[in-house]
């Protein structure tokens, strides 16, 4: 039963992808399959979460080969939470794309690619082996490459070239790091590495030992869009169709953050004075550059893209603190951020449909025309800035508490200042797009294009409800995050679950 639970989050998107491929060019069938598969992924995520929450860390050795040799799937609470949130976002964006995606893209294989992407994401969250992590990254990236370039056009091709190049470079560096790590420790199973890397490092010069974490930091840092490696993200995320960029914004960089947290809480824990301090510095710079980038922009989706970068800084800050509370806050922050950021991108899609553009200067009057949409924008926007009682407030509160408890006042001050600037740029969107009077030319277009926005509002409302609920039930939700943080901070349980239990 537990084996099935662990593989289902990969199996369901894979079968859905294959089935939608078989239903090539039969759009109605593909849409039904896609939605059913995404709903299945949510169900599998809930079941996995319930099991992991109740019975502790699960692990499974595919094919019965014992742990350091076979293919390992592991789910601790962090993985389970990530799979659950990925399923939720996968489902809502699938729902949204029913109403918004261009039929031409559907004929070019949008649905199969969508599910193969989800498969790569779940696989990356569940694998217990670094080389398999590389393979899952590639599964995810190849689908995302095609989704990014789908449909063509000059702007989209430009974005896709940048996106593809930098992500390939990051994969190459990841592979370099894997090769050297294998040469050093003789294994790539993460739980096995936790012990063996410490053993192997005893006989190595400190330069080699610092180079390896740095290679991983750069490789995952590019994927997570951390400072100073984030430039591909704002250059490409505003080009694809809204549904695709919402999915990317929600999930892809967070897979990089997940990998960072996993590697730096399990394997590279010997030299924290060096690595984790560096991570904290990167976190601070990521927050600041991201938010300044956002302030300088005047296009809805570009602002949101820069905010992804800024928010990545908060998640890495939790990792850099390295305490159980810091890691718990990082877990909470990632989950909150995925929901909120996806929602903001989906809203930008509706705004684009109403106003015909995403340039803030040409938008306006949306509050008067669509008060419901304006309200739905306020929920994730204020949550992103960290206004109580929404989910973002508790995520930031956790980080600040962890930082103060650890005596890292500088990073706490930076994070609070960046929150204020986030609020500023969210109010800028609010003032420009929703509050100010509609410019003359745009007003007529807004009224004319108003039909058919009700369906996209359903997934947006769903995600907004989740944000509010997480805020209202912050106690129990943060309790889960604290347990996940405790598991991450004390990896003995994880190692025991992979190497000790299972099939031996």
């Amino acid at each position, binding site marked *: 039963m537990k084996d099935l639970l662990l593989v289902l989050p990969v199996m369901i998107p894979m079968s859905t992808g294959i089935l939608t491929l078989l239903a090539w060019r039969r759009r109605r069938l593909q849409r039904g399959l896609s939605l059913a598969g995404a709903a299945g992924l949510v169900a599998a995520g809930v079941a996995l979460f319930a099991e992991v929450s109740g019975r502790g860390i699960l692990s499974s050795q595919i094919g019965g080969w014992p742990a350091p040799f076979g293919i390992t799937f592991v789910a601790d609470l962090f993985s389970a939470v990530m799979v659950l949130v990925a399923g939720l976002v996968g489902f809502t964006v699938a729902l949204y794309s029913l109403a918004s995606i261009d039929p031409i893209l559907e004929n070019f294989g949008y649905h199969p690619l969508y599910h193969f992407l989800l498969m790569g994401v779940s696989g990356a969250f569940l694998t217990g082996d670094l080389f398999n992590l590389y393979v899952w990254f590639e599964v995810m990236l190849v689908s995302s490459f095609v989704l990014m370039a789908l449909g063509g056009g*000059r702007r989209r091709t430009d974005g896709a070239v940048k996106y593809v190049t930098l992500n390939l*470079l990051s994969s190459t560096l990841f592979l370099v790091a894997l090769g050297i790590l294998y040469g050093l420790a003789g294994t790539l199973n993460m739980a096995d590495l936790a012990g063996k890397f410490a053993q192997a490092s005893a006989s190595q010069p400190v330069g080699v030992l610092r180079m390896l974490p740095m290679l991983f930091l750069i490789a995952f840092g590019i994927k997570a869009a951390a400072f100073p490696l984030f430039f591909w993200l704002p250059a490409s995320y505003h080009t694809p169709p809204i549904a695709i960029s919402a999915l990317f914004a929600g999930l892809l960089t967070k897979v990089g953050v997940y990998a960072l947290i996993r590697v730096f809480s399990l394997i590279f824990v010997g030299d924290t004075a060096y690595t984790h301090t560096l991570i904290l510095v990167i976190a601070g710079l990521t927050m600041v550059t991201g938010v300044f980038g956002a302030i300088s922009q005047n296009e809805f989706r570009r602002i949101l893209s820069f905010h992804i970068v800024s928010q990545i800084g908060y998640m890495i800050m939790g990792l850099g603190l390295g305490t159980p509370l810091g890691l718990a806050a990082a877990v909470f922050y990632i989950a909150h951020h995925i929901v909120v950021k996806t929602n903001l991108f989906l809203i930008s899609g509706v705004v684009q449909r109403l106003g015909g553009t995403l340039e803030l200067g040409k938008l306006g009057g949306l509050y008067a025309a669509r008060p419901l949409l304006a309200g739905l924008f306020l929920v994730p926007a204020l949550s992103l800035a960290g206004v109580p009682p929404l989910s973002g407030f508790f995520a930031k509160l956790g980080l600040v508490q962890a930082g103060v408890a650890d005596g890292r006042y500088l990073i706490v001050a930076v994070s609070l200042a960046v929150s204020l600037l986030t609020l500023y740029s969210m109010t800028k969107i609010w003032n420009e797009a929703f509050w100010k009077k509609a410019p003359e030319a745009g007003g007529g277009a807004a009224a004319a294009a108003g039909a058919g926005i009700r369906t996209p509002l359903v997934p947006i409302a769903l995600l907004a409800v989740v944000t509010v609920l997480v805020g209202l039930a912050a106690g129990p939700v943060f309790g889960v995050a604290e347990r996940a943080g405790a598991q991450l901070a004390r990896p003995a349980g994880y190692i025991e679950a992979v190497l000790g239990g299972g099939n031996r």
Partner: protein
Amino acid sequence: MAVVMAFVIGGLFAAGIYMMLRRSVVKLLIGLALLTQSVNLLIFDAAQLVRARIPIVPEGGHSLIPPYADPLPQAFILTAIVISFGVTSFAVALAYRALRTTGTDDLDRIGETERS
């Protein structure tokens, strides 16, 4: 042998990165291809080069006698080759598409006209 390999790998890396820094999309692709090849060699080399010691447990024994040629890195390389093949062919298709839609293979000019 390890020293020679180190220089080969380093040279390939340098050539790959140099090509990636050029502005032409085609040269970028060649750079990516060179990089992936050098990584494969690096994995091969990092797991130690051992000649003529096959990783088969001798009759009557229970474990391998070191040194032996580790088969696992070769499996990694095989996987990496397959993946890089797929990704590179996608990148070639994308470059062709970029050339068709924009009429240029200069990276700085692909996104240009739409802005102005």
